[in-house]
């Protein structure tokens, strides 16, 4: 179904960097900075408004931009293009400025060179979102943005390369997994050119013969060597490799979404997916976290929380929330994936270990996971699309600079019923993606009994999709929780 050959990229007919105007812009040496500056200015405005503006979430820039527009735009750009939000990341603007004054000298500790820390931070982020009702709090949302800026600045001031992006940033990890289903990829145009290349500037950076220790143009800071880079995992689309390549041989090429998950070659900067239990765990948390995050916004969760609170005889949310997270992010995936792996292994008479089987096929959950995030964030984005306008009008009017006029609070976006159709479509699209990926893995790796190996994973994807559709038809409810 999918070609696993690296050279399958060769026939790609679309290269974003060859598109008139846009391609020319992205080829500029300072294109990234030019994209980061407006996002940095908006981030500062969000922080200030979150800390000092009205503390009503629908009327504050911090909460509206973050939880409605940023998240929504992020998933749509990932769906239609690629990881361009990492490209324009404002946290990296501050970090790059700081690195002009002092250079980090330490390497990130070897035992932390994996995704376990970032998985913990990603789960913490999801937990804090529910516990502090971040969607309802401009003040906490502003501090969250400040924490991201401070985290990127401190970590990348101490440690070399793109440590924050690769090993720490929860948003980055979300984008890496989601971008596996994106239609664009930063990759080489012609592998023969790379074979002849002697300098390997795309990874080493550009240096002059007179000062070989001084890098005048960075190579990939995430240790992705272009000729052996496969897919979008760990790629921030920073385009340093595009700038560094002396042969103009790196482009942003079209490709079949999710195809990178179906084969398991040795990947530069990553190794083999089947041996990366941390990456598999990240994909699992990404997928089941999508369900959990959506579950936190519907009425049944409050009934369930009240029942748990009475069962545990507590009147505060922390232990109840911790139980729910343990149940849905640990117990549920372990049971479902463990069962699918065992059935798949037994029926297909595979010689692989249970853990290896579970890890390899877990990547097939990425499309359905992304479909659920897309349905959830897309709902808020599309139904609240135009609320950007009155919130901005009000913020400017509060400053005494009502250039956009007085706020029109009645504008919103598409109707929820219309958006529901999109939601169903996104979930079905994700389901089809997961089914395709798991079948392609089975066809490649269980040659004798691919269908038998495939069926348990297909059922798992159907269960996840079914749960997402059930959630979508529940009445929405948004509130803080108090059992007192």
């Amino acid at each position: 179904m999918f070609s696993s050959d690296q050279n399958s990229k060769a026939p790609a007919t679309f290269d974003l960097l060859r598109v008139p105007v846009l391609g020319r812009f992205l080829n500029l040496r300072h294109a990234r900075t030019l994209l980061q500056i407006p996002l940095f200015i908006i981030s500062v405005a969000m922080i200030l408004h979150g800390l000092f503006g009205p503390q009503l979430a629908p009327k504050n820039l911090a909460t509206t931009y973050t939880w409605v527009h940023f998240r929504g735009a992020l998933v749509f750009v990932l769906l239609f293009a690629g990881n361009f939000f990492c490209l324009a990341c404002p946290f990296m603007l501050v970090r790059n400025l700081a690195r002009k004054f002092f250079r980090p000298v330490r390497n990130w500790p070897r035992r932390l060179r994996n995704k376990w820390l970032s998985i913990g931070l990603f789960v913490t982020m999801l937990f804090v979102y529910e516990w502090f009702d971040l969607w309802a709090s401009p003040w906490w949302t502003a501090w969250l943005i400040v924490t991201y800026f401070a985290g990127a600045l401190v970590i990348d001031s101490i440690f070399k390369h793109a440590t924050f992006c690769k090993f720490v940033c929860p948003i980055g990890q979300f984008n890496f997994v989601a971008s596996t289903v994106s239609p664009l990829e930063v990759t080489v145009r012609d592998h023969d050119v790379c074979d002849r290349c002697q300098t390997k500037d795309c990874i080493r950076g550009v240096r002059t013969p007179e000062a070989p220790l001084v890098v005048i143009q960075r190579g990939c800071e995430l240790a992705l060597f272009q000729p052996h880079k496969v897919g979008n995992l760990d790629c921030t689309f920073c385009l340093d490799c595009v700038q560094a390549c002396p042969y103009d041989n790196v482009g942003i090429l079209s490709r079949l979404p999710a195809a990178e998950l179906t084969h398991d070659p040795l990947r530069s900067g990553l190794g083999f997916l089947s041996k990366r239990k941390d990456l598999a765990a990240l994909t699992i948390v990404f997928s089941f976290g999508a369900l959990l995050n959506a579950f936190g916004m519907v009425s049944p969760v409050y009934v369930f929380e009240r029942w748990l609170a009475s069962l545990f005889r507590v009147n505060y949310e922390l232990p109840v929330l911790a139980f729910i997270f343990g149940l849905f992010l640990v117990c549920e995936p372990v049971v479902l994936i463990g069962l699918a792996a065992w059935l798949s292994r037994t029926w297909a008479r595979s010689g692989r270990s249970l853990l290896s089987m579970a890890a390899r096929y877990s990547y097939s959950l990425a499309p359905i996971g992304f479909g659920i995030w897309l349905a959830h964030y897309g709902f808020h984005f599309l139904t609240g699309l135009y609320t950007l306008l009155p919130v901005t009008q009000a913020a400017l009017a509060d400053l005494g600079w009502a250039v956009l006029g007085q706020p029109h609070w009645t504008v919103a976006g598409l109707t929820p019923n219309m958006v529901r159709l999109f939601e169903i479509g996104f979930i079905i699209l994700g389901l089809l993606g997961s089914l395709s990926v798991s079948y392609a893995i089975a066809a490649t790796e269980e040659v004798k009994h691919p269908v038998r190996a495939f069926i348990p994973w297909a059922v798992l994807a159907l269960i996840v999709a079914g749960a997402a559709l059930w959630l979508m038809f529940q009445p929405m409810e948004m509130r803080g929780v108090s059992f007192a």
Partner: protein
Amino acid sequence: MTGAEVTLEGNMSHAGMVPVTAATTEVAPGRYRATMELSMAGDWNITAHVKSANGLNLERQFEIKGVEPLAPDG
């Protein structure tokens, strides 16, 4: 306060939601009544916009927590 023009504005705790508004009628001296259709379950923040008879503008906010979904029989 009698003879005032009072309108209510209800906002959801999540951003991206359109406010619900309602005009009130003075049912007794200084007592105002309105019917608001709170379009979603959850916590609502209600702002009362008051314009007094002598032209003063006032605002008061209060919360309605834990609005439940409407039962199927209404």
